[in-house]
């Protein structure tokens, strides 16, 4: 096991990883793959880069690993500029999306590869490989070849191989995508547990918002090579900065509206789209007439046969469809104006409180439930 003393443990004033305005455009590409990304990571953090396919996540990771050179901007690790440092000399290791295990080497030889390159003594290598294989629970498979492993086992070999050199930063490119759903959910906890044990900074790339939110302490949402928002999972989910972030982190209902009244923390909006006035708390006073969108997560909507007195807002409609998911049901409601909204009902009452298609219903929410998106 890597001891804590093998890396400087002090939290200096220098940030751990700093990306400043990093940009990269591939030759003959119409738009840059990474377009001015700035980011700071603290030591020991589990950070997730989240974004749709093609937004530049892998490109950013590859620049950190040294496989691609940024066109502009700088990358610093513990104050050291990485610009001229080749991949084999960087204190960074990467876990590849395809795992990239060496097919002609056993599991133990794969894991020990980094230590052999560092010319460690043989017995030290053997001991550290054994400890690392124990950490990822693969001790019994040390002599196997990668071709004889399941997907989940390969994934753990790749993790062990990337961790054994005790990098300052571990890059993980969609580490769970190749696993099936059940294994993926178990592995989430496993990966977080291992990260706590080794204390290495993890920078994970994923396009699965659930994965990012459940594992990382902070998230950066990327869109078209730029960072749209950085924050803790709850912050990004509850207070998305814009429509893209709101929509990417899960289903959302958007109502286009205009500000018609504003007090210190309460806005009154008029939505022509649904022909209703809505009230919502907001921490900023917006000028009257500002065009905004009210964003509302499906689980914040309550459904009832009659409007509830605790609601600040309520809309009438009919049930258009119900998708039973076990722990909850997704309900589609057609408002009287024709707009479709989505609500999620927790499955508390069991089979008793089922909704019938076509049944009239009221959807309502309190003033704190919605978020005003200014852009």
């Amino acid at each position, binding site marked *: 096991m890597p001891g804590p003393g093998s890396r400087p443990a002090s939290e200096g004033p220098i940030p751990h990883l700093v990306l400043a305005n990093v940009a990269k455009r591939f030759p003959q590409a119409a738009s840059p793959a990474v377009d001015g990304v700035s980011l700071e990571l603290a030591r020991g953090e589990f950070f997730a880069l989240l974004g749709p396919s093609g937004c530049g996540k892998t490109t950013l990771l590859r620049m950190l*690993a040294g496989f691609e050179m940024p066109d502009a901007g700088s990358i610093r690790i513990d104050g050291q500029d990485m610009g001229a440092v080749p991949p084999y000399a960087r204190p960074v290791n990467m876990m590849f999306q395809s795992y990239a295990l*060496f097919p002609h080497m056993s599991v133990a030889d794969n894991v020990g590869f980094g230590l052999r*390159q*560092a010319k460690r003594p043989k017995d030290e290598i053997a001991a550290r490989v054994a400890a690392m294989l124990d950490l990822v629970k693969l001790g019994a498979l040390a002599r196997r070849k990668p071709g004889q492993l399941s997907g989940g086992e390969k994934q753990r070999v790749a993790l062990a191989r990337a961790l054994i050199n005790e990098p300052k930063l571990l890059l993980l490119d969609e580490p769970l995508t190749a696993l099936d759903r059940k294994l993926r959910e178990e592995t989430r906890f496993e990966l977080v547990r291992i990260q706590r044990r080794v204390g290495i900074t993890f920078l994970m790339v994923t396009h699965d918002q659930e994965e990012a939110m459940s594992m990382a302490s902070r998230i950066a949402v990327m869109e078209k090579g730029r960072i749209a928002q950085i924050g803790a999972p709850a912050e990004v989910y509850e207070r998305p900065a814009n429509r893209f972030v709101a929509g990417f982190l899960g289903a959302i209902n958007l109502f286009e509206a205009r500000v018609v009244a504003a007090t210190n923390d309460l806005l009154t909006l008029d939505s022509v789209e649904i022909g209703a006035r809505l009230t919502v708390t907001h921490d900023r006073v917006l000028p009257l007439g500002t065009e905004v969108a009210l964003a509302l997560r499906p689980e914040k909507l309550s459904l009832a046969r009659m409007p509830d007195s605790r609601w600040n807002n309520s809309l009438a409609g009919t049930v258009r469809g119900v998708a039973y998911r076990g722990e909850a049901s997704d309900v589609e409601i057609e408002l009287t104006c024709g707009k479709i909204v989505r609500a999620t009902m927790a499955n508390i009452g069991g089979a008793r409180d089922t909704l019938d298609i076509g049944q009239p219903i009221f959807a309502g929410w309190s003033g704190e439930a919605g978020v005003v998106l200014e852009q």
Partner: protein
Amino acid sequence: MTNRLSPFLGTMIIVGFAFLYGPIASVIVYSFNASRLVTVWAGFSTRWYVELLSNDQIRNAALTSFEIALISATGALILGTLAGFVLSRYRRFAGRTIFGGLITGPLVMPEVITGLSLLLLFVALGQAIGWPKERGVLTIAIAHITLGMAYVSVVVEARLSSFDRSLEEAALDLGAKPAKVFAVITLPLIAPALVAGWLLAFTLSLDDLVIASFTSGPSATTLPMVIFSSVRMGVSPQINALATLLLVAVAAAVLIAGRILARTRNSPTT
């Protein structure tokens, strides 16, 4: 298999195989014929093999052929591997299409033309710079390298184009310098293709008659040349025995090369 062959298809297959392999089979059978007459069967004997081994002319030709095959297969392997690397790793450079076409040109070029043009080149070089003074083992080997490297480069390029580059990046990421990455990752993984390419080039050289005839001089006679010239005087059963041996050697080499290539294709590398 539930669907049986129709009688027509069965007949066609037998006729086809007979057409392809009948002559070869007859060579093998008559190499064990006790009679000197090639067309009359007079019982089983291995005397032609014994005579063959004591035939100096043929032994020397065999040694020359193997020498040329060794040199040219090795030369073709080195040059063909370099060409295959460039073709698969550098997807865009000025003249890439022409380069690729020129490399693989000898695959489709009539041998007579390859042979003739090389002969003219050697003659012209000999007059211009005094080298080569005379044609022989070296000139044949050079000619065979041009042919063999085309095959090697095709095999190597195919292997590299299905090669997962992230394996090399992973090794680089784990601290191996580029030369080390090549030695411990790339080379072991493409080794089967290299062996197969070498064997292909070796067999090509061993059984080539046309190009060798053009580029050889009085000092070098290869096995196929001996066979061809002696057959013109009438087929000796010794030649049948020699052809049988050559056939076995070539078949073994091709079989091994095929096996190795098939194993590479099924390996989990890609």
